[in-house]
């Protein structure tokens, strides 16, 4: 479903699924850009040798990068970031260079102008060989609370 630009609570109901948003594919430049902007300079995300020495087949994205895309999706679904009251997320699998991030969500509660959504960011891609990854897997599961204008 695509929400109208100035969405209000009476246009919504529990169970509604939100339009899918796709970001990426994430490449090493995106990871570097996020490292510089966020301050997360952990070498496991950028240094191939370091990542391998730590037991990973290659570098992988910091979780907060797809979490940032997912926050972007939530903001866009509900008319802007000013309506966000809570964003809680859990990381379930790593995101690899070449992965697209597919954001999906569903409204689970509406109470007046306040609503809650259950959202997921999937990683979609081949991933590194040898990990037995599925083509599409949940990388982040999250809940968000939104307060819509009157």
């Amino acid at each position: 479903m695509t929400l109208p630009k100035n969405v209000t609570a009476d246009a919504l109901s529990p169970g509604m699924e939100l339009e899918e948003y796709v970001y990426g594919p994430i490449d090493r430049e995106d990871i570097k850009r996020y490292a510089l902007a966020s301050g997360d300079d952990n070498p496991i995300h950028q240094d191939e040798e370091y990542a391998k020495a730590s037991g990973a087949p290659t570098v992988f994205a910091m979780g907060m990068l797809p979490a940032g895309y997912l926050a972007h999706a939530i903001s866009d679904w509900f008319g802007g970031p000013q309506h966000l009251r809570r964003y809680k997320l859990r990381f379930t699998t790593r995101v690899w260079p070449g992965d697209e991030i597919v954001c999906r969500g569903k409204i689970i509660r509406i109470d007046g102008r306040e609503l809650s959504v259950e959202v997921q960011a999937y990683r979609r891609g081949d991933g590194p060989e040898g990990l037995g990854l599925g083509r599409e897997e949940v990388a982040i599961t999250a809940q968000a609370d939104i307060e819509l204008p009157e």
Partner: protein
Amino acid sequence: MTEAEDKIEFELPVTLERIQDFAVAVDEDNPVFADADAARLAGFPEIPAPPTFTVTQIFEVPREERERRLGANLNYERVLHGEQEFLYKRLPVAGETLKGTMRIAKDFTKEGKRGGQMRFVTYETRFDDASGDEVMTALYTLIETSKDAAS
């Protein structure tokens, strides 16, 4: 070894430059992050920071300093970022400096699914504005897996 402190207080500058670098990094194309008029139309006094922007607190309090002062004694070779939560009163806006107060809110151990212990440490940072009002709170949960965990 010196005794751990119960909190770390620091300042988080919310500059336009940092906001825009961060917005580009998370692929934000909402004009509120780039255009002051669009921001005002959405009810912000200035250009706001994206919802996950306060992760930039790592610039002000690097991991080594956090570990040294709060003393969680985590072994970072076995640490994953497990969970994250943000509670918003409002979003930070360009030109303000937030006062951050970080402490360890939770620290517990439970059995992992594949055997071995998993330790959960949650750092809570409350961000206040210049008037002392809460802007938002961020909860950052690290998971330390045990040496013998299969993952």
